[in-house]
């Protein structure tokens, strides 16, 4: 079972994936409660567009995608705070727009190559040593954010008006969450795939909410579920030769259903 970790690429994928899953699940609790579930999906499409353009121009993928997706996250957040365009509509605009730009960039360069297929559906081979470094830095930042600002993050997502009235600069915390989400999405999408990365953000939070009623419980359970599902999915994909991203999301679905069943059972019993 541990034999698979003797391959360097699996070990890198396991480290990056575990850290990214952890970050995605923590941020996911916030995004789901703020009714921003689709933001991960929208940002991954923007990431796809940026990666495709970077590939076409021969630039380093992360150096282009990380800033572009951060800018997109900040703009999406501004739109939904001002309420000029509703949150879901602005995400749809970004998703389709970026996808179109990405597809166009691919077709104008050298057609659909393997790299871009991998961006869409993920590849376990995609993780380099610099991804490992980036994901360690990201995980440290995300965990520090949640430990130091636990009370404020709770307050900002539970009741933004109240937090503002109490002197908290809520837009700073929203911005922090958006930027961390952007980096998480870009790091995770090449392994999980553009189409599947938002599963890492949404599923663990929804799964945890079925059993836990307190905020701390949901956060901790969500992180544990996310890391477990990632490692189980990665192992399954290695031994069954199934696509990595899809395997991980399917394990997430199974755990979600089990927790849902347990929650219904508990309701019946009490």
């Amino acid at each position, binding site marked *: 079972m541990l034999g698979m970790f003797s391959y360097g690429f699996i070990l890198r994928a396991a480290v990056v994936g575990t850290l990214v899953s952890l970050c995605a699940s923590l941020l996911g609790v916030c995004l789901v409660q703020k009714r921003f579930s689709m933001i991960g999906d929208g940002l991954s499409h923007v990431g796809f567009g940026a990666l495709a353009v970077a590939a076409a121009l021969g630039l380093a993928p992360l150096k282009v995608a990380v800033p572009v997706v951060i800018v997109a996250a900040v703009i999406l957040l501004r739109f939904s705070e001002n309420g000029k365009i509703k949150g879901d509509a602005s995400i749809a605009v970004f998703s389709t727009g970026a996808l179109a730009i990405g597809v166009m960039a691919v077709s104008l360069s050298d057609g659909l190559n393997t790299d871009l297929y991998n961006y869409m559906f993920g590849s376990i081979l995609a993780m380099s040593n610099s991804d490992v470094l980036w994901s360690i830095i990201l995980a440290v930042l995300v965990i520090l954010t949640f430990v130091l600002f636990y009370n404020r993050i709770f307050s900002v997502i539970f009741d933004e008006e*109240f*937090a503002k009235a109490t002197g908290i600069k809520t837009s700073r915390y929203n911005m922090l969450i958006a930027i961390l989400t952007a980096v998480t999405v870009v790091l995770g999408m090449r392994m999980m795939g553009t189409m599947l990365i938002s599963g890492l953000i949404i599923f663990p939070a929804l799964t945890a909410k079925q059993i836990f009623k307190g905020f701390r*419980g949901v956060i901790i359970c969500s992180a544990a579920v996310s890391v477990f599902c990632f490692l189980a999915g990665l192992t399954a994909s290695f031994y069954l030769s199934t696509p990595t991203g899809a395997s991980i999301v399917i394990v997430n679905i199974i755990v979600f259903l089990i927790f849902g069943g347990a929650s219904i059972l508990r309701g019946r019993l009490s």
Partner: protein
Amino acid sequence: MAQIDVKNVTLAYESLTVTENLSFSVNEGEYLCIVGENGSGKSTLVKAILSLKSVKSGEIVFSDGLAANQIGYLPQHSAQKADFPATVYDVVRSGQIGSGRLFISKKDKADIFENMELLGIAELAKRSFAELSGGQKQKVLLARALCATKKLILLDEPTASLDPDAAEELYRLIERINKERRITVIMVTHDMHSVDYATHVLHMGKDNIFTTRDGYVRRFG
């Protein structure tokens, strides 16, 4: 000296002026009810007092040791967090964020429990906030407001979604907070009955009328 002095304030919503030349003041320990029709600017005034919105002209001055972010606020419609994973303790504790400290101290924790005791919700501490009744939720949010202030609470339609019994219970608790702790109360309300508890009334409309409760009763009876 007044805790809040509203001087010749004009408030606008988008570009529409909702009220003009509004002046009144609130002193420590007073209980002010703000009444008036929909659209008369009550909610805009609340946002202006909380510094969530700027005034078009005039000024709102805080003094007597009160700062703008030391107001305990109970927002309107905030009881609708139907699926938020939070315990009662989580919610009450979030009132402490104004302290400027990242982590809560022993004294903060004692305050949290004291406020929960005062409102009779201490035994609910570990319960899910989302699963409480409307009246219980409002008591939890009132406890949170108390954690954010020692001086003044600002309540925006606190009983709007409550049945008469629950509303009465909440009014009694607010009265106790006002009398026993000398915490100033400003309450926006539609319920004329709640004026009974006030010391002063601000009636917002075509003409803004600021008077004592007795003056208000004589005039509008």
